[in-house]
Structures are given as C-alpha cells and as structure tokens.
C-alpha cells in the first residue's frame, strides 16, 4: 500500500486513526503494530514473516548484548551479519553474480529474487539499534511489542526517513498527543501528498514522454534532466513529509530528511540537506568507525570513497548507483581539497556549480544503466547531432511550464518563509489571523480533493523509493 492511494487515504488511514485514538494509552502501540503489519502485508504478504524474523533477531540479540556484556561483541556481530546477510541476499546477490559472470565470463546461475519492500530501511534500523545498544547509547528494549512497532511502524516503514531507535526511544513509551500536533501532522501530510501527486507524478509523465519522444532534441534532453531532478526531490521529500506528518498524528517526532537541498552552494552542503537520515546513518555507523577524517589524508579520502560507494549501492543494486555514489564522492573530495573556499567566494557560482552537478547526478541515478546515462549526458551537451529544439520539445516545455515553475518555487524556502511571516503576524493582526485561520484549512481541503481527483483518474503513480 502506498500513501498516495485511495485504499490508504480513505480506508486504511481513517480506520487506523479511529482505532488508535479509541484505545487507551498502553494499547496504542499494539494498534500501531497491527496496523503496520496489515499495511506491510497488503503490499508484500509473503515477506511479512521475513520482517518479523528480522525484528525478532534484533530484539533478542539486542537484549543479549545488553545483558551479557562479555559476549556483546559476538551478539552484535551475529545480528549485523544476519541483517546484512538478508539484505545482501535479497538485494545484491543477483547483481554480484551477474557482475561476476560479466567480468570472468564464467556462467553462473541467474538469481531472480523479488526485493522485499522497505528492506533497506528496516535492516538499517535494526543494525543501528543493536549498534547503539552495544555502544551503550540506548538501553535494550524490553517490550517486544514496542520493538516490533518501532521497526515496522507504517509511516516510515517503506521509504524512511530512517528513524533511529535513539530518536524515538522515549516516545515509544510516552508521547504527547494534542490537537496542535495532529493539525501539524495533517498539514505536513497533505503537503507531502500534494508534492508527490501534483508535482512528482506529473513530472514522471514528462519523463515517460521523453522516453517515447519522436523528435528528440537538446531541449527535450534538458527538460528530461530537469524533470528527473525535480521529480526525485518531490517524490522522496513528499514521502518524507507524509511520513513525518503521520508520525505527528500518532504523537511521534521523526527526524527531518530534507532541508531545501536545491539551495545548496556546494555538494558538501547538498548532502547536509538531502536524505539527511541516510547521510547521518552512514556517518555514524560507517564513516566514523572507519576513522572519519582523523586519519592520514589518503585514508580519509578512501573512507569517503567507501562510504559513497556504499551509499550508491544502498540506493540500488546496479552499477549506475555505484557510479552515482562515487561521482558524489569525487566532488566531495575535490571540495575538501581546494574547491570549497573558491565556491564560498561567489554564491551564484556555487549554486550553478552545485545544481549542474546534481542535475547530472540524477540523470545517472535515473538511468536504466550506465550506457543510457552516458548517452543522455552526452546529448545534453550537444553530442549525437540532435536538433537544438523540436516542435515536440517546445510543446512539452509549454505544457509543463507551470509545473516546472511551481516545482522550482516549491523547492525553495520562499513559501515556508512567507507562511512563517504570516504566522508571526497572526497574534497581532486580526485580519491576517482570520484569513489564515479560515484560509489554511480550505486550502488544505482543496489540495486533498485535487489530489483525490488525480488519484481517482488513475494517473501515473509509482514511488521512486518504494523498493530501496
């Protein structure tokens, strides 16, 4: 089940909210756990057991790490090996076997395994949990219900943000439920839903149109690249907004995952603003244990390369994702060597540099393989003898101009700042107060109805991060 679907919006969610607020405090986690299992089973019935096995091993080994300190390293290693083993088998085994066969020419059996939904997210949560228990930063969870609920919690189960146990340890037992928090959650959820359905899905249609273009041109290639860049942001950040909003409705405060990454003026800054929960996960559980930057320079850069190759691989079992990660690492290293001070001298130059590199990176990210990625990038810069402009590309530019404009504005903090200004004026300005108080719910309702119209019409609606 995906958030942007009629069964979720008009059947599952209202039923869960009703049940959740109907039961007393201690039973709320049970309701959330059962709801999460139904949510997961709806999309992946056969792999629900696998998720429960992963939760159970994390729970048992976490408790053993906490209670048998002499053997804690062994239990930690066992848990991490199980988690990575399961992730490796389901996500990477086929890829590595194919790559091995391609490199050596040795025929190996083809392994076709369906990737369980959300496996990359929940295995990382289990790993971070047992490591945190081992490090002593958190105590092992004694309640299996709470542990299972934390890992499987449907708002963040299939596409993050990667909520670490330490982020919500206290909230698992006691959390605040208030009208203000529920309203905040509703706002955030509807905004995320609108970002996904009204912007990302529409740009997805443009990307599809590029794939079947009859008159390719340089303009169309650039439209495609810009559409990919904006679609990935609106798809993924929209999903994170929905997850954070749902969390708020149920009393949780999930970590933010995006902070307007497209205003960045360097790749370093971009990665402080993009998929922050993944970035900090790799920093805390891979980069720093490898020695971080407190090692010799060559080792430092090697650490960066390792972390970014793994980050790329986390996104997908294909070489273009590895190249995408290493591409990011290359520019991060260049910035650490000499570029960062230069970029700080000119905000405009820094922004143009960052956006151009990000644009190319998402072409690599979105491509079916490296050959396709290379082909698109070459065409962006005039290779292939394409016409500069075609009637078809002009048509799509005109047709998507407003969507592009909304997407560009929506990826900047302008709107947020505007509303923050209005909020500040509310207590002192009666007119602003009335307009805002009445207008905001109406705008949210209008967005919900508009999104529903798009969903009922059965338009294009995949989730890009659904199988990560």
């Amino acid at each position, binding site marked *: 089940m995906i958030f942007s679907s009629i069964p979720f919006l008009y059947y599952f969610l209202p039923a869960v909210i009703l049940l959740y607020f109907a039961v007393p405090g201690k039973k709320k986690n049970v309701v959330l756990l059962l709801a999460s299992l139904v949510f997961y089973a709806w*999309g992946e019935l056969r792999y629900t057991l696998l998720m429960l096995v992963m939760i159970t091993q994390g729970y048992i080994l976490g408790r053993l790490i906490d209670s048998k300190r002499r053997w804690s390293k062994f239990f930690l290693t066992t848990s991490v090996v199980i988690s990575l083993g399961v992730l490796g088998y389901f996500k990477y085994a086929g890829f590595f076997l194919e790559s091995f066969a391609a490199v050596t020419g040795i025929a190996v059996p083809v392994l076709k395994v369906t990737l369980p939904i959300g496996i990359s997210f929940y295995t990382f949560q289990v790993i971070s949990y047992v490591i945190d228990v081992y490090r002593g930063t958190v105590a092992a969870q004694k309640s299996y219900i709470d542990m299972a609920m934390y890992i499987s919690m449907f708002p963040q189960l299939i596409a993050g943000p990667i909520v670490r146990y330490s982020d919500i340890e206290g909230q698992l037992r006691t959390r605040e439920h208030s*009208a203000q928090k529920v309203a*905040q959650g509703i706002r955030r959820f509807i905004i995320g839903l609108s970002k996904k359905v009204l912007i990302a899905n529409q740009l997805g249609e443009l990307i599809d149109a590029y794939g079947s273009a*009859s008159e390719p041109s340089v303009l169309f290639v650039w439209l495609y690249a810009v559409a990919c860049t904006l679609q990935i942001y609106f798809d993924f950040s929209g999903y994170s907004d929905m997850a954070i909003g749902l969390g708020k409705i149920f009393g949780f405060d999930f970590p933010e995952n995006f902070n307007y990454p497209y205003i960045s003026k360097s790749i370093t800054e971009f990665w402080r603003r993009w998929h922050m929960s993944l970035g900090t996960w790799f920093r805390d559980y891979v980069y720093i244990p490898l020695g971080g930057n407190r090692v010799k320079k060559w080792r430092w850069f090697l650490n960066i390369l390792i972390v970014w190759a793994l980050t790329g691989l986390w996104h997908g079992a294909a070489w273009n994702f590895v190249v995408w990660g290493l591409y990011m690492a290359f520019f991060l290293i260049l910035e650490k060597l000499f570029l960062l001070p230069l970029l700080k001298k000119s905000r405009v130059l820094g922004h143009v540099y960052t956006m151009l590199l990000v644009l190319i990176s998402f072409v690599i990210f979105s491509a079916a393989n490296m050959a396709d990625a290379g082909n698109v990038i070459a065409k962006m810069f005039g290779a292939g003898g394409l016409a500069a402009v075609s009637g078809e590309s002009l048509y799509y530019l005109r047709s998507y101009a407003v969507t592009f404009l909304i997407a560009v504005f929506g990826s900047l903090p302008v709107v947020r700042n505007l509303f923050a200004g209005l909020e500040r004026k509310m207590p002192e300005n009666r007119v602003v107060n009335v307009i805002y108080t009445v207008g905001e719910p109406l705008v949210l309702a209008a967005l*919900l109805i508009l999104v529903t*119209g798009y969903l009922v019409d059965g338009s294009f609606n995949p989730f890009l991060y659904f199988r990560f």
Partner: protein
Amino acid sequence: MRKYINKNTIVIFVAALCIYGLSLWGIIKPDESYSYSERRGLKAFPKLSVQTLQSGRFMEDFEKYTLDQFPMRDTMRMVKAVGNYYLFGRKDNNGLYLVDGYLSKLEYPLSEKSLEYAAECFTLLYEKYLEGNVNAVYGVIVPDKNYFLAAVNGYPSLDYDRFYSILEDKLDFMDFIDVRDLLSIDDYYRTDTHWRQEKIVDVAEKIADAMGVSLTGEYTKKQLDTPFHGVYYGQAALPIAAETLYYLENDAIKNSTVYDYESGKTGAVYDMEKAAGNDQYETFLSGSRSLLIIDNPTATTDKELIVFRDSFGSSLTPLLIEAYSKITIVDIRYLSPSYLGKFIDFNGQDVLFLYSTLVLNNSDTLKK
C-alpha cells in the same frame, strides 16, 4: 494561544470531514456496474480468498475497485481535468486537448510501421480477391481532427502530407480520392472523433463523382431527440455542452434494408435502438459490425459497391446508397479477410477503401 487552538481544531475538523465523509460515503453507497461517461464496466468488489490474498490479486483488484466506485467519480475526474488544464496550464489531459470548443486526442508520431502494415493488409486483400475480379478500386483517407487543430495550435502533429504520400505510393492499385480540401473542423463533432454526416454531403458527392456515379444530394435532415455525448466527452471529464446528432434521409436510404451477417438480422440503415444507447454514433449502420449488406430495392442501376471501412464509413456509406443497388460493407478489424470468399462474390463491383488516419496510424487492429 486560544487562536492557535481554534485554528488547529478547524484544520482537524475540515480534514476529518473530507476523509471520513468520503470514506463513509464510499462504503455506504451502492456499487455501480457501468460508467456511462467512460463507456466501460466498473470493477465489482474483488473475490476474497486465501489464494487471492497470497497472490496479491485481491489487493490489486481492491485498489481498482475503490477507484471505480469512489463517490462522485465523474466529478473527481473533472476536478483533475480542470486542475490539469487551468491550474497547471497543461496543454492536454491524458492526451486529450481542447481548442475552440473541440476536443481532440493527440495522435503522433507518424508510425511508418503501422502504415506499412495497413498497406500490406490492403494489398493482400487486393491480390486475393480484387485483382482481375472487380471493376475499380478507390481509396479515401479521412483526416482526423488533429489535421485541422494540432499543428496550428502548437500541438505535436502527424506529417499528414507524408502520411498520404506513403500510402499512395504503397497502394498503387487504388485510385485515391483526396477529400481534405472539402473538410474543415466544423465538419466534425466537438466531443467525438467522427465527422458529422450532415456536413459531408460534398465529400460523398466527390467520392461518387470519382467512382463514376452521381448523387442527387437531396436529403431530409433529421435529429435524435437525446443529446449526443461523443467518445471524448467522458474521457475528457470537462464541463462541455452536449451536441445534437443529425442524420440524413432520402427515399433510397428509407427503403433500403441492411442485413447483418453477425446477428443474421435485417434492419434499417439507421438503427434507432442504438440511438437510445451509450454511443449514438452507432445509429449509423449499427456501429461496429463486421459484415453488412445494404440492398436498395429502389435503385435504378445494377451497380454494386464493396466498402472496406472503419467507423467513418458508417456515416458516409448511407449517402452513397442511391447510386448502387447493393453495397457490401466490410470491417476487417472484426472479420478476417481469409473468410471473405465465403460471403462475397467478387465480380465486377466498385471497391472503396475508406479509412481514417487514426486507424491507419494504429493499424494493428486490422486483420490479414
């Protein structure tokens, strides 16, 4: 602080009203089995069993069911269409666009493969049945609405000149009759793909002239009582006024009978049962039928005509009736040409191939 609480309460109330209201409405309202605007059956509640749950079929079908049975489905589709056109400035919605009150569907690029396939189908027909057996073979390619609307309004369009020349080159056994100069967008329905019968009398006359017969051009214009919503009306989901479907009658049309090989029944040229149905354009020769014979008992000639056609032929062929004693109408989308020898004696007739650019550019529906 009090003001914030009120604001939050309103947000919760409005969101709950929308979600719970539509949710309960969806659960309570009886399921519908057919969508008249979309001209299709709607999904019923899927079968729930261990097998359908395990395979994920139940979940997939349930999603389709909730989409089909959503309260105010047509209104919701209209919300999307209006949002797409007027809020996001999109030039089309699901490939449909609206210019000067005319709805049309994007049709591009030109598919040479499809034209080749169509030409191959027609050539096989010619070689198997027509060559040496019939009097003459004519071809008419009917331009779709995009011919008049697309390019001039900035929409991607077929290269129609190339389209016509490819087919004329490949089908050199046909005498092509170009009717483009007689047509304009006014000759088509606003909400449908087809041309209006009452506007194509000149087209029928030009075709008749080219085939060596003449038409009086005298018809009585009649109209259906029910409003006409064309095929694009439901697909577009936009608030567009209904149209009137007119049909032309003269003594030859009135006295002729139509034998339908599929049903084995004989009826009239204009099927008044279809006039009360979902697609009133099917009033013309009962719509999609594979093989029809029109007998004109009042004919003053013994000339016969065989028409290979798509749905554009349904409204044009009646106008030719007065010039022939018998017209055989074949739709090779529904009848394989290999069976034609069983039903038709190819012997001295005139033959007319009448196909629209829409079918020719998507010719995989034609049977060989």
